[in-house]
């Protein structure tokens, strides 16, 4: 049971890393970003590429993977996402989905189709109530809490964060103050992408890197964002962990239904919260 709890928390943490970017992008730019899944998968593949070069030193490889995604995220934002501001949601969804298709094929072309395993960078387990638990998962959960605290600090204290929070409330209003909102959107887009990469990097050792890894988490992350409220940062945090728990607990009893249960929860939330769309 404790093991299931820890697994649920880990899933929740990874979901949080992924969903926070989606949530911010939607809240500020009104764009559902399917390409987030591509960034996530790319992160895991960058990690695989950097690990041998750095003699398997995981933290540095992870850092490089995150740094490597920044120019890619910038190009995506500058040439595709920015052209979709204020357009209908549909075109944004279709365009970012197109990016995802292209990116997935590029990944398959460079790294091949077969899943590539990554070894657990810590490989040590700790004991809790007499049960062996992998330390790596505990680290992931701790990192999620740290990122949550860090993001809260960023959005409450820094001027960039304050502007973004204001833009989440009322983009036009902020624009009327003479601020170049697009520049700040670009910054948060890159921040969100970097966090997705962090998620991909941290998740790779748990399962493996494969071209479609982003597709799987994307659907569940959408559920997280819808349940937590689009653009609601604390809501995303809570719903990520709640749904992570739902996955772990369902998976314990009937593993094939784990993902489906998430959507059942989502549908229930949507029915009871009609006005919020």
């Amino acid at each position, binding site marked *: 049971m404790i093991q299931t709890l820890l697994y649920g928390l880990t899933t929740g943490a990874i979901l949080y890393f992924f969903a926070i970017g989606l949530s911010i992008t939607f809240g500020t730019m009104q764009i559902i970003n399917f390409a987030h899944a591509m960034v996530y998968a790319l992160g895991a593949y960058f990690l695989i590429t950097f690990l041998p070069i750095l003699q398997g030193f995981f933290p540095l490889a992870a850092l490089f993977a995150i740094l490597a995604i920044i120019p890619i995220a910038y190009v995506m934002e500058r040439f595709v996402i920015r052209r979709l501001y204020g357009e209908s949601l549909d075109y944004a*969804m279709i365009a970012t989905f197109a990016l995802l298709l292209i990116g997935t094929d590029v990944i398959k072309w460079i790294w091949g189709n077969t899943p590539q395993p990554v070894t657990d960078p810590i490989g040590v387990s700790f004991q809790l109530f007499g049960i062996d638990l992998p330390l790596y998962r505990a680290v992931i959960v701790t990192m999620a809490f740290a990122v949550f605290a860090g993001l809260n600090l960023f959005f409450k204290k820094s001027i960039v964060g304050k502007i973004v929070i204001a833009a989440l409330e009322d983009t036009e209003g902020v624009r009327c103050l003479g601020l170049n909102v697009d520049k700040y959107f670009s910054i948060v887009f890159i921040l969100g992408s970097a966090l997705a990469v962090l998620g991909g990097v941290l998740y790779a050792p748990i399962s493996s890197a494969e071209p479609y890894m982003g597709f799987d988490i994307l659907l569940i992350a*959408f559920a997280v964002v819808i349940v937590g409220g689009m653009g609601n940062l604390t809501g995303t945090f809570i719903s990520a962990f709640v749904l992570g728990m739902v996955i772990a607990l369902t998976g314990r009893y009937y593993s094939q239904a784990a993902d489906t249960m998430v959507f059942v929860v989502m549908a229930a939330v949507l029915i009871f919260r009609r006005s919020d769309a």
Partner: protein
Amino acid sequence: MSPLNPDTSLSRICATKRTTIYRDMVLMAAGFLALIPLLAMHRVTDFMIFCIFVMSFDLLYGYMGRLSFGQMLYLGTGVYVSTLFSLHFNPNPILSLMAGVVGGAIVAGILGLIVVGLEGASFALTNLAFNQVGFFLIGSAFQKVTQGEDGISAGVEPWGFLDLANEHVAFGFVLLCLLFTFYMLRILTSSPYGIIIRSIKENETRVKFLGYNTFFYKWLTFVLAGAFAALAGTLYTLYVGFVSPVFIHPMNNVDVIFAALIGGAGNLFGAIIGGVLFMAMKDTLSTHIPQWEWILGLLLLVIVFWLRGGVTGLIKSLRDFLRARMSRGPVAEVKKG
């Protein structure tokens, strides 16, 4: 029932000449017949079934402006309901077809009550989520009934001259279904009902202000789209005879969205042209290049950024351009649509 006054100019917009529809239908049948020498007949039959599916999606997306990422669910419902009906109740093809369509409509009717109140992203993603649940139910949960990933053979038997194992009969039957779908949707979309759903696409609040119950119209459209998608699904059952969860896989929703866009959304001709073009492209590309999805991605980007109207939009703007050239000389300004 409708509060529209027939004497207003609206009725002029509504009234599509029946003769135009019949002319279009004849042209369409001729077009598909002309495709036979180019491709194999069974491919053309496949194309036509896909075109019915694209039209059902276009009613929802092109006409009412609601993008769904879960239309495969209704195709899959049609496929599985008709298959199971033919296996366990009656092997008659027409009854199986009706069972599939009714099944699709019922599922759409129930889920529609939840989904239709949503908008934009929530609508698209909730449909996707339901599609995922349906895929799970078919692929894993009811494995004993559906035989999961292994697939299942339908038990449809010939009924009178209606033997769908015969290529020619199947072609004719599917063509009839396609023309029926086209006729129905054409009549519906040019009726007052069609004007209401197109107005919902433009501005739902105003339609509400005019006193219409927009929820009901959206729900009705959702059910109709589900029923026609299920029709396409049952045709797959009858024609292919072997079904597997591929027919309900959420990832295949891209195909129909892409086909509707490439042809031009909000236009039944666009749906048919898009369906044929997409299938032809998929056939050629997948035989020559093992990884062809990136081409699809690039084309989607081109459509979104430069070619919103799709092929039919392109044809229309070309025609307008030429017309303006003829009447006003080369300086005439042309508005791109």
